[in-house]
Structures are given as structure tokens and as C-alpha cells.
């Protein structure tokens, strides 16, 4: 499964409580669309650290890295380089 699919599934299952793929566009902003609240983002970080074996630094906890599936995918790719 691609990183994008894993992240999409995680968000769909844990925040939208659905397996309907159409419920989430990979470009959707989690905050603007009300998908995550501010504690939800902490759960996402735990998930990413677990699943992709990365460490998210405090300075990296910004919407540009984490506020959509696309942003997360790019962020993980950068981290892995």
C-alpha cells in the first residue's frame, strides 16, 4: 500500500469514521474542513511516527507539513530523503 493510501485510510477510518473514499480529497485541509481538532493532530503525529518510523520535531508541527493528505505525503518523502 502506498503512503498516500495508508494515510488516507487512517484519516477516513479514524476521523471520518467511514470507508467511503469520496469523503476525503487528498488536498482537503484537515482544519478548514473540520476533519481534525487540535488534539486530533497529536494522534496523527503518533500514527506517522509509528507507521513510517520518523520523528516529527516541534518545529515541523505546522500546517504546511500536516494539514492534508498531500502535505503529509510530501513531508514524509522529505523526511525519508
Amino acid at each position, binding site marked *: 500500500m502506498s503512503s498516500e493510501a495508508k494515510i488516507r485510510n487512517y484519516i477516513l477510518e*479514524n476521523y471520518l469514521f*467511514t470507508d467511503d473514499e469520496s469523503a476525503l480529497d487528498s488536498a482537503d485541509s484537515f*482544519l478548514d474542513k*473540520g476533519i481534525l481538532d487540535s488534539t486530533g493532530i497529536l494522534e496523527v*503525529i503518533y500514527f506517522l511516527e509509528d507507521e513510517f518510523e520518523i520523528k516529527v520535531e516541534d518545529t515541523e508541527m505546522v*500546517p504546511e507539513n500536516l494539514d492534508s493528505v498531500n502535505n503529509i505525503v510530501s513531508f514524509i518523502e522529505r523526511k525519508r530523503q
Partner: protein
Amino acid sequence: MCGIAGIINLKDGIPPSRNELEGMIHAVHHRGPDGYGFYYHDKLGLAHARLSIIDLIGGDQPIHNEDQSVQVVFNGEIFNYLELRAQLQKKGHRFYTHSDTEVIVHLYEEHEEEFVNHLNGQFAIALWDSKKQKLLLARDRAGIRPLFTIETGGRLYFASEVKSLFSHPAIPREINLTALQEVFTFWTTLPPHSLFESVEILPPGHLMVINKGEKRLSRYWDWSFPNEQIDNHKSVTEWSEELRALMVDSVRLQLRSDVPVGAYLSGGLDSSVLTSLIKNFTDTPLRTFSIGFEEEEFDESGFQKDLVDYLGTKHTHVLCKRSDIGAAFPKVISHTESAIVRTAPTPLMLLSGAVREAGYKVVLTGEGADEVFGGYDIFKEAKVRRFWSHAPDSHWRPMILQRLYPYLKHSPTASGAFTKRFFQQGMEHIDKPYFAHIPRWSTTQRILQFFSDEARAAVPHPVEYAAINRLLPDEINSWKPLNRDQYIEANTLLSGYLLSSQGDRVAMANSIEGRFPFLDHRVIEFAATLPCRYKIMGLNEKYMLKHTMQGLIPESIRNRSKQPYRAPDSQSFFVDGKPLEYVDYLFSEERIRKSGYYNPKTVSMLMKKCARGKALGFADNMAFVGILSSMLVDEMIIEKNAIEPYNRHQSS
């Protein structure tokens, strides 16, 4: 403290019978296990279940005036009854008991409907004037004691608890989905809504008069604040001296009782204030009770011990485990008779059980101080957000938000730049009186995503924040922002949740009466005139109360930041990733589908997330507790109409 119930015919009809009233009052036996009393008239019946606290021998109700033309049943306490009694005796009234109840009938004779303005107390009253054929229902100012009504079949039924109404076969039982949405937004239904269709709450500070088949509702008291322009130029010392004298008097009045009085001790400022005032200014022997948790995040045992050592009180400590919460939760919901979004009432029910076991019937408790003196994080959060709104591009202004939630393991301010984005939401509502509450309400409303398509269709207009406007006074926008926040908090969370689901109901579950010295209306009215800077000084909450108590409580407690009382939520309902049996049943696809409120698939995914221990944030935990509690209401109240708490075996 007691339970009351009654029926009045609004049209010609069969007189209420003993059988009907017995059924209703037996349903609230736990509120008054010390005896029953009844009164009948051709169109009216009153019933009373008594918990004897004042005038143990002579205080049986109904109580009447000299010629027995005025009859009253009442739940609560009139704390200034000795002063009222003396005044009434001077005017020639003759008393046949030593009970506080009796002042009500004589005050009514003197002042008619204005009598409530003379009462200092916590009460739900049903008073019958047989000469004028008039029934008065009244509820105390802050909403400490409950009173529900329902009009059906040409009659008005009223009672301390909904189960009393539902014990009558004529009363239909159905959840009001709009009211459920209100709970999943504001943490409480908005009066007059109860959770149940057609069942209404008599709102706090209101009087209902029923005369010749007509009902008239009026508000005799409200939280009120000075106009924004007015500032009171007293010195801190002057404010402080006045406040101390008033608090001492409030505690002194609320200790009036013919049985011993205990006190809850949380380890926070408010209960420390009360216990210290009892110790220092009265000769009442101090007996205290506290609750603790295994999880460090929730536990305040260290501060409780500091205070116990400082005051030298005889103390009982109850340790509440997660498994205790899971096991007791159905019983809690049978008493709250509402959906709730936190488990926090559960430990308080266990605590009131410990009070009962210790042989006590009455406890003083600190609720109200946060609303009255400006203690809540939500007030501070709003203060920072308002400050930020003056310079929306500022980088450092929102950074202050990160100082707000140091006690939370998973703080909403721990996520760096996301914090800023989160608290930015709702900024466009800066001019709305409910600006402060939007972050809380928007997080809570996430529960609405679990509703089924049928439930959504049944409520075509989902509840909006602006629904709160119907509770707000016209002048609210002329008040200072903190005062607006206080008003909304007092009229939603305080009366609708803290004093009911987390207050009266879980105390009365064990026949315990809570008393609330911070909610003496004189204290509320005095504090309303305090300049806002003396409520929250910078980000130092309840500044004036802390200042006033200098030298009377340990500095460790006076200087600590507020830690809101909370308890473990979704994790209380799982053992090793498996749900408790009743939870498994109520969340099953079949049972969820049968109730019709929720989408079984989304609920099942939430359940799995909680079972994995991955639900860390408020939103998921509130959703889980909210759905579970409403399913318990459906199972125990709508389906089974059981007075006794839910028993899994009944459902198999």
C-alpha cells in the same frame, strides 16, 4: 432535601388519585427515603418523599398555613428560614413546626407571588392556594434543585425527576432529537427542553403560575452584570473585606441543619475556601470527603492531603478506578436522565455513596465559584483570543494560548502552529456574546457526524450556536466580555450539567444533599459588580477570591493553577481492548439500528478506535460517552422505563 410530584387538572376531569401519586413519588424514593406525604383536592394532588434534615420530627410535608388553605411540598432548603420565621411571627403568623418549609406558606400569605424573592435557598416548590385555586411552581435562582413538567390529556404533571413522570401510564416516552443535538453542542439541553419530547424543565429563577387552566411563566431572578461603562472604584482591600464577610455568612447559613454536615474536598481552591471558612469561622466539626484516581493526569490526592493536614480534618478518601466508572455508569445515567459527554459525574456518585456510608446526609461543595469569580480556562482562552483579535497578524499574541492547559496530557495547545489555526476558528464571531464558547461547542458538535440519516431527516434544521440567543437577555452586549462569558456559562454548563447531571442527580442517587455556598444569590450579585480585572488578573483566575483567602488556606493551594475536575472517559469501558458486556450490546449494529439515532457503521468504527486505546482527544471521547449515555437512556428509560438501573440480563 426531598422529591416532589404532583398533578393538576387544567380542565374538568377525574381528580388525581392516590394511586397515581403513589406511583409517581415512589419513583423518586431515593430522593426522600425517610417518609411520604400526600395532599388531595378535587383537581390537584401533591406528593412528597422526605429526606429529614431540619425539624426531624415535625417537618413532614405537605405543610400548610393556619387555616390549611395554602399547602406546600418542597424539595430543598431555605437557609434564611430562622430570620424569615422571626419576621413572620412578628406579623402574627403562627407556626406549628420548626421546619424551614413552613416559612414558605406564611411568606406566600404576605407577599403572594413575590414570596420567592425573600428566600435564600435552593429549592423546587409546589404551592397550592385553594382559595384562589392557584398552583405555583418555583425553582431556585441558580437551578440547584430540579423540576420537570409535562402537559398532556388536559393535565399538568410535575416532578423532581423525569422517572416520576414516566411512572404514570399517560405520559409518552420519546427522546427529543433536537434536545439531543443541544446536549451534543452545549453539553446540556436549552430550557425549557429536557432530553424528552414534551417534558419541560422549569428554568432556574422562574415561577410558573397555573390558574383556571392557564399557565403563566415568569422569571423572578437572573444573573445580571453592570453596564460596560460602569466601574466600581473600591480598593482591593475593600472588595476583599466585603467578600470575606459575605462568604462567611453564606457558609454559616448553609451549615444550618439538624443533622451533621460534611464537605467535599477536591484539592482545588474552591473546596479549600469552604473547608477553611468552616474551620476558621464556625464551630461545626469538620468532616471531609475526597475522590482520587489512579491516573496522575486526573488525580489531585497530593493537594487534598496538603489541605487535610493543614486543617486537621477527619477525612475519607475514595479511590476511583476506571473499572469503577465502567461498572457504575448505567446507574449514573438512570439518575442523570440525560445524555452526557463526560464520565465525570460517575466518581461523584461513588463519592456521595461514601458520604452516606459515613452516616452523613449533607455536604457543602464548591460548584459555582468558577462561574461567579471567573475561574474557567474558557474565560482565559477567550481573553487571549480577544487580545489576539486586535492584531490578527501578530505572531506572539496567540503564543500566550500555550500557557493555558499545562495539566492536559494531550493539550490542544501542544501542537505548535496548529494551536494557532485551531483557536483562530470562530474569530469572525468576535462580536457575538457566545464568542468564548465556540471552540468548545465546535469540538462537541463533532458528535453530530454519528447521527443516522433518519435522525438527520427528523431534524431538518440542525441546532446552531445561535440557538443560545433565546436564553440571553437583551442587554448582554452592553456587558464586558468576561461577564457575557460568565452569563452563558452559568445558564448552560452550570445549571444544565454541573448542578444537575454532575450535581443534584448523582448526590441524590445516594440520598445526599449538596449545598453550594458560592451560589448564595448575595454572593453572585456581589461578585457581578467586581471589576473584571479582579476576577482574572492577567491570566491569574479567581484573583479576588485568592486574595481574600490569603492566610486562611495553604499557599500551595492558593498559588496553584486551576485543574478542572475530570475523570477517565472512553478507556473506562474497555478491559484489554474488549468492551464491557453492556457496552458491546448497546453498540451492536442491531441495537444501534433499532434505536435509529446513529449510523451503526460509523459508531462501530469509533468503538474500534476507542478499543485500540487510540482515542486521545476530547472529540472522540465525548462522542463515545455521548453515544453510550444516550443509548443507555434509550435502553433503560425509553424501552424499559426501569426505575432501577440497567441490568444487562434484562435485555437478553
